[in-house]
């Protein structure tokens, strides 16, 4: 088991009704984590189940789904960015 600090932004924060949570999980990679969250069903499945595009950052660096999740990591999930 590891502990992850999850944070959500913008449309996903509103859809999930949460700015973040602390999660105890066995997820080894970002893809594992996303699958675990999507398995909650409802809005989690709608946003993370493959129908919509999202991005993941690990410890404040943009990440790929195959990237490993270190214990204690801050993992952010958010829509594609729209600044500038």
């Amino acid at each position, binding site marked *: 088991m590891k502990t992850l600090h999850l944070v959500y932004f*913008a449309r996903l924060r509103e859809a999930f009704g949460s700015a973040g949570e602390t999660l105890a999980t066995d997820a080894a990679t970002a893809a594992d984590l996303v699958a675990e969250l999507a398995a909650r069903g409802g809005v989690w499945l709608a946003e993370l189940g493959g129908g919509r595009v999202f991005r993941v950052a690990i410890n404040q660096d943009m990440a790929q789904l195959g990237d490993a999740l270190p214990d204690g990591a801050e993992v952010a999930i958010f829509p594609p*960015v729209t600044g500038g």
Partner: protein
Amino acid sequence: MSRIRIVVGPQAFDLGQEYAALVTGDVDSGAVAAFVGRVRDFGSDSVMTLEHYPGMTEKALAAIVDTACARWPLAAVTVIHRVGRLAAGDEIVLVLTASRHRRAAYDANAYIMDYLKTEAPFWKLEQNSAGRQWVEAREEDDTERQRWEAP
């Protein structure tokens, strides 16, 4: 070493002041390129709210500027990005790049904006009398960025 100034916050910026600060004491930079991004009007009573990811935003902008400084001979770079509530016509973003020659100043400036738009964690929420909606990312922005990745 390039002089780098990165600011993320709600405050408005003054192009003249930022330019003066950039070039003060620098008589070698023969070129300064400036880009200002502004809020377009998207309907009556429109208000835009810029959300960001505190911590990662500054880190992402610093990484983009560092890469630009490694690729072009830049004497100084300023990047200011506003967050919070903005109205049509308000300035959102400022990028200043100073170099000995104009090509480096122009190209580095465009590079920084192209990466900012696709890598820096900002999100725009538009609200007007018709409702509210999160702005969707544009595929064209990825295409613009990819031109810098070609061999």
